[in-house]
């Protein structure tokens, strides 16, 4: 039945044996195989296209472009990952992106609302749309596939109704900056963008502080920790990555506003999924709904909130996309739901729920983003791009299935 190597029956629990760094690495890698595998694949893709494009890929201007081009997909992927972890799916996000973009255009272009107010109202519309779907899924008990398939048609239709089939533009500059803007430059002239350097330094400091605090607390609780050498190596690698990224951005226009939004979501929702009761309840529901209910998890409320969250994120992505196009258009967001779902699965989600991280969704989204950007740079047609992306999705999940089978479950 199970394949554990239990010690002899009467032996007391073995003390946690001190393990070598190598064994620990292997264990860590095995535990997060798809996510780590995808991180390696992402690095490989970056190197591949960096060489193939003669260095264009990592030019500061292209890195900024890449972030702004993929921001809205990454925002959707983060929400989609949470939905999938809970054992559901959301097919409506592409249409919702279009609908919220259209509503924001109506508010700002037709009715001249201030853009901040319009943004807030747009997010509210997303929340209501999510609550609408969440109600049917959580409280009425209709499968999410059906409810969101209906939502996909519904919101697409509403988009065309409110726009009367036309595109609406232009948006105020402040709104456009959500997608196209950068943190403003401040301070004396250096070769680099000053606020970006400050943000980079703060990020490094924060990450190192967090690592140190985490390690100290683990030691205080008498838990076994990563060996010191390995831990130091991890810190150095992390610092190097952030510094390189910061310098790249700082030598162009600095930190894009979208990047700030995304990092906020990544950190915020990542934290919620790891450390908040509701996040744990999402994993429990996705892993075994019956057991979670019998453990006191309020399954309906959690499911409802997941879809409200997805609605708000889709609204945010809708605003970012509309701001980037500088128009509300009836065809916005077409197939975005599929990109978000693909990103989640490439990033380690499981079809049956219970598995996946917010970070994984971002990595999965970046794999797709780098593929898109790199293939465009080397002039691969969109026809072949689709073929390749389809194969990558198949390979990523196939690798995971194969790896699990080999591990002997």
């Amino acid at each position: 039945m199970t394949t554990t190597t239990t010690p002899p029956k009467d032996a007391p629990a073995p003390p946690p044996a001190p393990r070598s760094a190598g064994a620990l690495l292997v264990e860590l890698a095995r535990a997060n195989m798809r996510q780590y595998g995808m991180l390696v694949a992402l690095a490989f893709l970056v190197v591949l296209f960096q060489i193939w494009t003669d260095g264009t890929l990592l030019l500061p201007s292209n890195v900024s472009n890449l972030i702004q081009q993929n921001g809205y997909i990454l925002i959707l992927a983060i929400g989609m990952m949470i939905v999938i972890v809970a054992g559901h799916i959301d097919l409506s996000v592409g249409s919702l992106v279009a609908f919220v973009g259209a509503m924001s255009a109506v508010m700002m272009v037709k009715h001249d609302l201030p853009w901040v107010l319009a943004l807030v109202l747009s997010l509210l519309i997303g929340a209501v749309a999510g609550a609408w779907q969440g109600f049917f899924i959580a409280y009425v008990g209709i499968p999410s596939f059906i409810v969101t398939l209906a939502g996909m048609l519904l919101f697409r239709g509403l988009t065309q109704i409110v726009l009367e089939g036309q595109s609406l533009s232009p948006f105020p500059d402040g709104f456009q900056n959500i997608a196209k803007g950068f943190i403003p430059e401040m301070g004396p002239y250096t070769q680099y963008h000053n606020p970006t350097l400050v943000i980079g330094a703060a990020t490094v400091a924060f990450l190192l502080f967090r690592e140190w605090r985490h390690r100290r607390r683990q030691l205080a609780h008498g838990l076994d920790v990563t060996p010191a050498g390995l831990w130091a190596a991890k810190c150095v690698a992390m610092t190097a990555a952030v510094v390189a990224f910061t310098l790249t951005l700082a030598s162009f226009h600095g930190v894009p506003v979208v990047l700030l939004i995304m990092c906020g979501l990544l950190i915020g929702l990542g934290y919620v999924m790891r450390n908040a009761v509701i996040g744990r309840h999402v994993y429990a529901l996705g892993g075994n709904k019956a057991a979670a209910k019998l453990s006191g998890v309020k399954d309906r409320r959690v499911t409802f909130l997941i879809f409200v969250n997805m609605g708000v994120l889709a609204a945010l992505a809708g605003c970012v996309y509309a701001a980037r196009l500088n128009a509300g258009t009836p065809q916005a967001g077409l197939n975005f739901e599929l990109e978000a779902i693909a990103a989640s699965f490439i990033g380690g989600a499981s079809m049956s729920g219970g598995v996946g991280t917010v970070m994984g969704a971002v990595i999965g989204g970046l794999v797709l983003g780098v593929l898109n950007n790199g293939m465009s740079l080397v002039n691969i047609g969109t026809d072949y791009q689709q073929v390749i992306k389809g194969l990558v999705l198949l390979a990523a999940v196939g690798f995971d299935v194969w790896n699990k089978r080999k591990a002997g479950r």
Partner: protein
Amino acid sequence: MSGPVLEMRGITKTFPGVTALSGVHLTVRAGEVHAVCGENGAGKSTLMKVLSGVHPHGSYDGEIRFEGAPVAFKDIRASERHGIVIIHQELALVPHLSIAENIFLGNERARRGFVDWDDTLRRAGALLRRVGLRERPTTPVADLGVGKQQLVEIAKALSKEVRLLILDEPTAALNDEDSATLLDLILELRAQGVAAVIISHKLNEIRRVADAVTVLRDGRTVETLPVRASPDAEPELSEDRIIRGMVGRDLDHRFPARTPYTGADAGADALTVRDWTVRHPVDHQRTVVDDVSLTVRRGEIVGVAGLMGAGRTELAMSVFGRSYGQYVAGTVAVGGREVSTRTVPAAVAAGIAYVTEDRKRYGLNLIDDINRNISLTSLPGMRRRGVPGLVDADHERSVAERYRRTMNIKAPTVLEQVGRLSGGNQQKVVLSKWIHADPEVLILDEPTRGIDVGAKYEIYTVIDRLAAQGKAVLLISSELPELLGLCDRIYTMAEGRLTGEVTRAEATQEVLMRHMTAHRS
């Protein structure tokens, strides 16, 4: 009555770590209804799975002879070709297909790959007449009651030219009227030369239809007894005689000595259930728990004995947040104060914990680690810096580590995936989860099912420790020695009702079994 139609000799079947059958003999004579009895876990179902090819030839030792020739079935289809058909306790019908389609499922009346509907309906009609079911063959099975569905199952078996019909608890889900119809049908088929093996807990039914009974205990054949001299004679075998065969064994498990609870409130009522009545979740006509009242005091371990289908788990789950069935009536009090147990969170808040009998389905998130399985019910209390809704992951992990050590969960770290643990260790994880929730009352449903003897002893020790700390424990178990070895008092249930309350001093396996098989007169 001639020679044997079926002979099973020296059947031994082992699963990893467990010997389910050990040298079992079963002989069924031609045209005989043969009953197989035994406690839950005695090996009855395993024996029938060996016979019907669910456990294929080669996965067991021993010999099966059918109609005089040795047979070796590699799957169910092979045994069905010989005319051996098993009808499982859970019916295997497709609800949205018609009666006729269900009867010929996998065995379609077809010509050149296309279903011959005329032939299908004609034959189905004939079979329905044979089993006495007055329904049209085109009626969807979902529109039939359970009793009629059972008859469809038998019609399906008859369509396969059945020579030996195996029925696993055929009347467990039926009311008295449907049961009587079914038993009459079995007798009628016997008259037509169809032999039957019937597994049943209901000794009165065995006396009514069986010609002989084989008693199994702990995976061994205890004895085969004739029930009546000839098919038409009155039964001679008494129910008490069968019971003696089923339980006649020494207490071969060891139990820890009870440590009494000495707190000031020892003996105070901890859990009081009054007039608890629950109906079946789908079939609202059926009362599954019928007017049950019971009390568990602080520091007390109280058992609930009953055979399969007696309503024990249904009672426990309906009390625990109405997780089962349709609530009809009844109140629950914890510590003398009436509480709401309308939802699981309410029941947990009231101080009740329920440890399920099916840990894989209802107890654990198998793809997650030990750490998070243990903390699941206690997360709101593990606050990070006092902020509601946030979890202190370090505190969580040190809690899990503590339980890994004290409960002796055999895993290298608490980050081990629960699905990879053995049954006993999984059970310790579920227990840890509920112990950490710090309830007043623990309802333990078959806490030692499917785990090895060593781990059982550890679980017993944990139960004893809980009682010694003043918790009230309601212990549901199908293993009578376990109840006798641990409990201060034992309630017995049959057909959804309490049929007895026995103190430790009075309790013997015979007394309990008599109460457990008591039926509505």
